[in-house]
Structures are given as structure tokens and as C-alpha cells.
């Protein structure tokens, strides 16, 4: 069992938790993920590591309430326990040789982008961050990004805070103005990452994308997280859990990945509703 050391809401649908998991904390690196089960009968869900403290033996996770499991997870309190917490899984984000990086995060993806930005900052790289949200009320982690970025652009789709527009706007402006990045790393909704790749393409900048497919075991056994990469004109199957979650953005088949991620959408919506009803009943 894994104790919830702290819990705080970042906005109305995004929560941050620190979990006591010393073995995971000792090894965790930015870009890696964990698999958790809330309770004995729970499903396995992957969550990217949002930070870790090897001394305290804790791992930070930030999750958005999207389905039944995240709804149930969000009802767990500080001091309570999670049934299972395994990791760190996946390959850590590559940092070697990158002196000037642009981190592009969208929505809850910013939670995963943050430790990556912090790591580059720690390594002495020049960090430019662009973080985008639908609107002001779901903005998260602005201060944290300020601390680890040499430059920070905050965007909202509806213009309710900072600059109006999506994350590709400042990215394009910078690239247009001749800014040279060793690497662009983007983490967020698939559609956003797809457009970051399209924006960067004419300028020939390498783009790393962090994929978030549906997973079950997360250890290289079930193959659910497979995605297609186009390498030298050939379609190659890769597994996000052991080969990723980071991939070369120019090679990823985003349309297929988006389609696959929608496979259980109806089920998830229903599961969340069921979970909500269950908690409502409990409150009455």
C-alpha cells in the first residue's frame, strides 16, 4: 500500500498528490511514468511523474479527472492509501547535448512538461516555455514554470488570461524570427502536439512528443499502447510503455493515435458518471 502524503487541487478538475513510494522515488526521472490502482478492484492507469523526492521517498502525480478511476482517485484523502503504485516506467526524456530547449505544454500536459523544464534548467540549458490553457480558470503551475524558464509564454484559447491564442502562435513567431532551438519538447493533447510538429516542420527543428496512449500493464506485455511511426517510408509499430513515451514528433502517426485513444470514450464517460453517482449517494 502506498500512502498519500499530500493532496491539493490545482484547479477544478486537476489534482496534485504526493505518494510515498521510496523505490520509485529513488529512480524516477523526468518523462517517466507510473502505473497505479486505487483499490483492490481498480483498473490500472498510467500517470506521468510530475516530480520526485528521493530523500523523502515521494513521487508527485498530477491528474485530470476524466473517467471513473480518476474520479475515485480524486476522492482519496491525505493519509489514505493507494493499492498499487509501480514504476518508474518508460524511457526518461533525453537531455544530452541540448543547450537550448523550447518546452510546449498544453492543459494538464503542463504537469508533465514542468519536471522536464526543471531538469533542463538544472542542467544549465536555456529554457523557453510555452504553456497553454483553454481559459484562465484551468491555468496551472504558472509560478513553477516562471522559476525554471528563461522565458515564459502563457496562452489561453479564449483570451481570459495573458495572451489569447494557442501555443503554436508564439512558437511560430520565435521560429520566424530566426530563433534556433536544439529541441522542442511538447506535452499535451494529441491535437496540440500534432500542430506543434506542423509548426516546427518548415524550420527543421527536432521535436520530441510525449505520447499518452491507453495502457494496461505498462511493462511491455500487452501491446495496447502501440503506435505507428513512419521511418524512412516504412510503418513501424512501437510500444509507448517500453520504447517511449517520448518519440520523434515527425514520425508519429497522430491521426491513428487520436483514433485509438477514443476507443473507450463512451465507456469512460459512463464510468465517471457511475462513480460520481456513487459518491453523491455516499454524501446523502
Amino acid at each position, binding site marked *: 500500500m502506498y500512502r498519500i502524503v499530500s493532496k491539493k487541487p490545482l484547479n477544478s478538475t486537476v489534482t496534485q498528490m504526493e505518494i510515498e513510494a521510496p523505490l520509485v522515488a529513488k529512480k524516477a526521472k523526468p518523462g517517466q511514468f507510473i502505473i497505479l490502482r486505487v483499490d483492490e478492484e481498480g483498473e490500472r492507469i498510467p500517470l506521468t511523474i510530475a516530480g520526485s523526492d528521493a530523500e523523502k521517498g515521494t513521487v508527485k502525480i498530477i491528474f485530470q479527472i476524466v473517467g471513473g478511476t480518476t474520479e475515485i482517485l480524486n476522492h482519496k484523502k491525505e493519509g489514505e492509501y493507494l493499492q498499487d503504485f*509501480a514504476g518508474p516506467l518508460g524511457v526518461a526524456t533525453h537531455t544530452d547535448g541540448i543547450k537550448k530547449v523550447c518546452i510546449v505544454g498544453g492543459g494538464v500536459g503542463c504537469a508533465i512538461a514542468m519536471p522536464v523544464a526543471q531538469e533542463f534548467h538544472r542542467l544549465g540549458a536555456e529554457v523557453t516555455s510555452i504553456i497553454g490553457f483553454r481559459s484562465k480558470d484551468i491555468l496551472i503551475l504558472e509560478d513553477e514554470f516562471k522559476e525554471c524558464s528563461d522565458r515564459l509564454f502563457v496562452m489561453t484559447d479564449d483570451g481570459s488570461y495573458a495572451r489569447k491564442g494557442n501555443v503554436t502562435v508564439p512558437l511560430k513567431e520565435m521560429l520566424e524570427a530566426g530563433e534556433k532551438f536544439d529541441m522542442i519538447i511538447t506535452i499535451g493533447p494529441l491535437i496540440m502536439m500534432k500542430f506543434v510538429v506542423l509548426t516546427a516542420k518548415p524550420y527543421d527543428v527536432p521535436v520530441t512528443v510525449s505520447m499518452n496512449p491507453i495502457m*494496461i500493464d505498462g*511493462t511491455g506485455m500487452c501491446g495496447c499502447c502501440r503506435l505507428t511511426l513512419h521511418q524512412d517510408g516504412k510503418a513501424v509499430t512501437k*510500444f509507448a510503455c517500453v520504447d517511449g513515451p517520448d518519440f520523434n514528433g515527425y514520425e508519429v*502517426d497522430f491521426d491513428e493515435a487520436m483514433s485509438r485513444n477514443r476507443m473507450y470514450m463512451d465507456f469512460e464517460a459512463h464510468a465517471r458518471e457511475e462513480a460520481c453517482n456513487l459518491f453523491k449517494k455516499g454524501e446523502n
Partner: protein
Amino acid sequence: MAINPKKHEMPTQEASVRAHNFNEVALGYTEEIAVAEAQRCLNCKNQPCVAGCPVNIHIPEFIAQIKTGNFEEAYQIISKSSSLPAVCGRVCPQESQCESKCTLGIKFEPVGIGRLERYVADLHNSRTDIKAEAPESNGHKVAIVGSGPSGLTCAGDLAKKGYKVTIYEALHTAGGVLVYGIPEFRLPKSIVAKEVDTLKELGVDVETNVIIGKTLTIDELFDMGYEAIFVGSGAGLPNFMNIPGESLKGVYSANEFLTRSNLMKAYRTNPVTPIMKGGKVAVVGGGNVAMDAARTALRLGAEKVYIVYRRSLEELPARKEEVEHAMEEGIEFLLLHNPLQILGYNNPDDPRDPKNGFVTGMQCIRMELGEPDQSGRRRPVPIEGSEFEIDVDTVVMAIGTSPNPLIKNTTAGLEVNRRGGIIVNEDGLTTRKGVYAGGDAVTGAATVISAMGAGKLAAKSIDEYLNG
């Protein structure tokens, strides 16, 4: 007394009933049937059955005890050689192992050794008054990677010799393929849990949620004081055919389909882990895993289930009993058929149509058998112009796996073969001192009992290495 030429039949659930539930298909012998079946054993001098068993259970001895009603003694004889009797009695391919060597089998049907093994193991497990006892410690520590059949066997054998054994399991439940792969109707999960509990009584520690190669490495295990390590990390990533359409929604690997149903209990009403239920399902492949997937699909409520296999019935690698059960349950075998592509829905007018990207069918081609290939089996050759489509909405690929790369990638000096399988010598020793391996991690997808045989061999080698 004349010998009954036929094995006593295994009582089973009616095919029409069991096709709709996940309860065990075979119900097990009664005491009366078990004793009568045991009487068929000739207790012949040269005991060929023992040599046919990968873990060399003293078969005639345990059967002799059944004849006289000494069932617990029979169990004790089996457990000297096998750590998982209730599992083996259910999933071993006895027809190609012990029973294929049975002297009685020359003239008649062989003795039902597997069914007898299952009987005594179940009887033992139903008794709550008997507990295994941890033997006196010999002071040595051994780590086991993976809690599947090879790891459990290796752990059991070493624990009985007084080793302090810790099993590290990546998933949240111990049992490996016995819990995520083999379905409830063939191997109830309570039986696996019971076998794991027996090991715990012997003093074995089981640490779940530890992924060796990630959470801890092989080198760190040595640093922690383990003197030898057995790697039984099992089969790895599923193979796909590399035909168009394999990324469509509704295409599963058998590992995923079975893991969702077995480990994550998606077969239940209102599951927390989703799975596609109902509709028409094609399972590609002809092994035991393919049979398990097909029969699982049927029980999940499929209206039609096909097995699509490119060779003929004769080459079908699954156990005969499983194939017969599948056929009785109404699964249709498309033999000498090979998939060419999987077809999906695509509404050109509406890219947001929720049906887009889901499987609608599979194009197959008919095959005929040509000259024998390297495996000695006749090579299937496509019959030109025989392409046709079957109407399905779920496709399960059950065509094998490739070894998991996590341990290889993080262990210097651990060599693997061209296919990624860990290289071991005849003692089960890898290219790293003190590191032994066995099971699917070495051989690629094989059987539960061959993995157990490898675990047993490694336990013997580890004992010689540390105590020899």
C-alpha cells in the same frame, strides 16, 4: 480383473451452458472415479511416464497411494517434484508428455495421470488443517524475477531446501501468465492464489509492483545481498502480422484481450476495465492462447467466434482437449486461412463520425499445404484469387510474443539470442555469474510445464552453485 480400455471421462459442464459462463469447464474426478482410474495403472517396472514428465513426478508411486485411498500421501509424493500440482493437473499437455509414454497406452487409452494429479491436489487444497512449514534456513538469499510458473517452481524448490527466497513481480498480483493469461474457466484464479499461499507458508516473500530492470536492476539485487538470481520474466511484447489495419479499434493482441478479461476482470458485469464484448470475433492463430482468447470472447457474449489458422487441423499446436472443447462450444475453425488485411469504418463525409476507425471485417485468403518447411511442417501456400471477407468487429492476434527488453537493457553482460531470448547453458546459467534464467524469457512462448521444468533445473543449479 479386466482393465477398462478407456480413461474415465472427466465430468464437464455442458458445452451449451459453459459457453456462457466463466466457471471451470472440467469439474474434476470424484473419489470413486479417481480410485477406479488409479486401478488402471499397471505399476510397470520401467516407469516411462516419469521420464515423460518435465519435472519427473514419481507418477506410479502417487497413483499407488490413490488406489488405497491415501490421498494426502499421494499429494506429498507429487509435491516433492512439483510446486504447482493443482495447476499442472489442469493445464499440462499430458497427452504429449507423461500420458504419451504410458505402457497402458500401447494397447488402450493411457492412465489419466493429469486428472488424478488434479484430484489429489484439489483434495489437499480443500483441507485447511494442513499447512506447509518453512524449513530451517541455510542462510543464503536468492531473488526470483517474475512469479509465473518458472519463478514459482524455482522459488518453491529453493525454499524447501532452506533458502531465503524473495519473488519480485511487476504486476499487482502474483502468478504471471497463470493469472493474466490463462482464463478462469480453465484455471480458476483461486487455485493459483492457493499455490502462491503455499509458497508463502514455506517462507517465500512475494514483492508485487517491482519491475526488475526499472524499479530495481539485477546489479542492485546483488548489492542487496542476494547471492543468486533467477530470471523468469516471461513472454514479452506481442507479435503482430504487419498487415494493414492492425491499429484499428477492435484489434487486440491476445495478451491484451486476455489481460483485460482475466487479470482486470473485464468479464464481469459493470467492469472497471473495459473490453469489447459481443459482436463477431476472429482470433488469428492456433495455439493454446488462441483457444483461450476465442473461448473467452464467446463467454463475453460474442454471437460468432472464428479461429483463423493458416495450416490444417493436424498442425494446430493447441492441446487436443482445448480444441475439442472449443469446437463443442461452437467456435468455427477457418483452417487453411490467412488474414491479408483488417478493414475499418471510415466515413469520408464526417471525420468526427464516432464509428470511424473501428473494425468492420477482415480479408482472408485460402491456403493449401505445400512442401515441408524448416519446422518439418508442410508450408502453407496461398491459393491465388481465393480472397474473401469475413464480417467481424473484433480481431485478436494470437501469434506469439517477443521477449521483454527491460532486463536485457539494464544488465551488463547478460547476453540474448537473435530473437531476444536470454542465453542459458544446460544448467540454466546465463552469461552473468550467479544469474540463471528459464521459461518464456529464454525460449519464447512455450508451455507452463516446460517453464516449470526450467525453474526446477535452475533451482538445482543454484543450490549446487551456493551449497555445492
